């Protein structure tokens, strides 16, 4: 059964550094998403992406964040200058009709 995959599973970085989180969506899916889950809190929407452009973004998704689908298979989330409060589990999702989620990347900013 096809799955959404994400790399790395864990990432530790220093405050102010750039990080890139990678996702490989399910191959025939057309819509792509990033969500995050701060420890002990609910899952929050960050951004949706369709037809090579952002279709919707939340207030969390400020200028420090960007998304890209560089090669038709990968879908990336870049955080330009990480802050302590960016520490969270980041989930990628893709869909035709139903969103399927990847296993997540746990990001720790020190």
């Amino acid at each position, binding site marked *: 059964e096809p799955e*959404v995959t994400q790399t790395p599973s864990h990432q530790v970085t220093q405050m102010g550094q750039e990080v890139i989180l990678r996702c490989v969506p399910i191959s025939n899916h057309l*819509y792509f*998403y990033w*969500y995050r889950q701060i420890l002990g*809190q*609910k*899952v*929050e*929407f960050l951004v*949706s992406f*369709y037809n090579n452009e952002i*279709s*919707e973004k*939340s207030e969390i998704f400020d200028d420090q964040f960007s998304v890209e689908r560089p090669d038709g298979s990968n879908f990336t989330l870049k955080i330009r200058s990480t802050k302590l409060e960016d520490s969270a589990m980041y*989930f990628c*999702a893709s*869909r035709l*009709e*139903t*969103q*399927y*989620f*990847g*296993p*997540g990347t746990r990001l720790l900013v020190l």
Partner: protein
Amino acid sequence: AQSVAQPEDQVNVAEGNPLTVKCTYSVSGNPYLFWYVQYPNRGLQFLLKYITGDNLVKGSYGFEAEFNKSQTSFHLKKPSALVSDSALYFCAVSRGTGGGNKLTFGTGTQLKVEL
């Protein structure tokens, strides 16, 4: 704006007994409703969804959910709980398949099934 409420942080049930995990929602227009389950250190796993049609929807692992428009609820149920059902359950809503179709999640309900 769309929102989801899961009023119970934790639900405890004995194995073999029926379980219910509650969810109410608020959204403009017709809701698309979902249940996901999260096992420790794992991603969100899709269980079932309501889009239109029959108010009782059946999903994976014997779970079902009933859409009640007048009560704006979408409670998750299972006739006979298993210890392996113990996990964190999230209810989610979206406005439909148009546009970005973002999911808004509830805070989650920890289900604990005991022998």
